[in-house]
């Protein structure tokens, strides 16, 4: 595969992953968010596999398979179950309305582009051109966590943040050693389970998963 084709594919993959992230900002239903997250994880796995095939590094293949298994299939099933139990309440209006949050998302992507330009000029790998978009995804997911009221959506925002970092690692340095990768996966899984319990508790005490109710807990 010629380096030019790889850089084109890596930018394409990174764009798909970022678009799924922006879909979170655009759509309101939780089911749509879960579908966006699943699509994102599959696109991330595909990009990792493509980079693995180009770099001929079996570790990346393993990471791609792991990604597909856990984030592509495992976590979405758990999310579906949680959504069926909690997600059925009425739509909660986010702090920022959809049109403005999309514009803010766009500005964050531009900011990411400006921030990562020096990074891109440093590395020589053909996949470096996708890095600004990966950094854009990190900023967008942080914005999702800040601006959404539903706990479930915030969990999805966190998972997307982790996806963004993984993509940045893959594009920036052809993936990090497998041991570290597996460690990261375990952390994510653990974090997700803790959050699941956390969301369950919120629902029990407040009859809704609106994070805004939490501020009633102070004296």
């Amino acid at each position, binding site marked *: 595969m010629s380096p*030019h084709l790889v850089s*084109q594919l890596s930018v*394409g993959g990174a*764009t798909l992953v970022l*678009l799924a992230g922006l879909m979170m900002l655009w759509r309101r239903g939780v089911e749509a968010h879960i579908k966006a997250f699943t699509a994102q994880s599959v696109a991330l796995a595909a990009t990792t596999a493509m980079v693995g095939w180009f770099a001929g590094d079996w570790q990346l293949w393993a990471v791609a398979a792991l990604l597909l298994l856990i984030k592509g299939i495992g976590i979405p099933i758990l999310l579906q179950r949680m959504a069926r139990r909690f997600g059925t309440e009425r739509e909660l209006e986010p702090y920022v309305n959809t049109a403005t949050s*999309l514009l803010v*998302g766009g500005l964050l*992507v531009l900011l990411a582009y400006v921030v990562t330009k020096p990074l891109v000029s440093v590395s020589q790998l053909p996949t470096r051109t996708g890095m600004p*978009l990966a950094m854009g995804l990190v900023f967008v997911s942080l914005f999702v966590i800040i601006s959404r009221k539903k706990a479930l959506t915030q969990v999805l925002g966190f998972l997307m943040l982790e996806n963004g970092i993984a993509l940045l690692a893959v594009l920036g340095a052809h993936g990090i050693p497998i041991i570290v990768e597996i460690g990261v996966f375990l952390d994510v899984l653990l974090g997700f389970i803790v959050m699941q319990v956390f969301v369950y508790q919120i629902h029990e005490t407040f009859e809704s998963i609106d994070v805004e109710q939490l501020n009633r807990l102070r004296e």
Partner: protein
Amino acid sequence: MSPWLLGPVQASVALLLAPGLVGAVRWMKARLQNRRGSPPWQPYLELRKLFAKEVVVSNNASWLFRAAPFIVFGSTVAVTLLVPLLAVPLPFDGAGDLVVVVYLLLLGTFFLALAGLDPGSSFGGMGASREMTVAALAEPTMALAIFALAWGAGSTNLGQIAFRTLATPSEALAPGHLLAFAAIFVVTLAETGRLPVDNPATHLELTMIHEAMVLEYSGRYLALLEWAAALKLLIFFTLLGNLFVPWGVAVTLTPGALLWAVFTLALKLGALGGAVALVETHIAKLRLFRVPELLSASFILALLAVTASFLL
């Protein structure tokens, strides 16, 4: 055949194909609604009928009401001379580029909105106000999408863009191009009044945008406006088709190449028409104040297209 003759040939081909395109989209929608529907050449019959009918003009309307259809029709036909419909070495390439195309279409919308206001009915005012709102919000997306295309091709002239994509096929699959294609597709749905933004087959005046402005027209004026709307749809599809997927566009002006170009053009229009029919069967009409969200989403697509296009 001299390039200067290509202009009128291209305009007449566009005029002939446009009603057929609208008829084909209607026919496909009918088939998707499990009914036989009117044949694809129905719009030609409707135009023939409208040209023969009497014209009734409101007593409040001024000369502008009677002049607007010619200006709207004229500006849209003028655009077909600039768009790479059949051949790439366009005769008028020096006269106008993609920015001229966008602003000529805006001129048509400007006079159509004024004609909507002229008879003084509340429907015309409603249609004009909403049409100008949607047109104004679609402008930034078009500007950035044009730039994402032009940056790759090194020029905003349409012939140059199509020629460049023909020369380097890998360019067509660049993410910048795909995102610009998606952005312009959303703008096409907004500008030509297709479903998510405005329902072309609606009867409830309160929901109309494009239709409300032509409520007062009848006879030959209505025929001109319907034809201009069909032409506008054809122009946007040609921009989508021949700028992003320019294979089949004639490079030499031999009659054989031109016939092949007309055939591939019809094929592309059919494909895009099918896509619009599918979109319209699957999506319900957006509430008017959710349309800015759709347009800001397309603005983000165009913004990504620009960043992706000069990353490579």
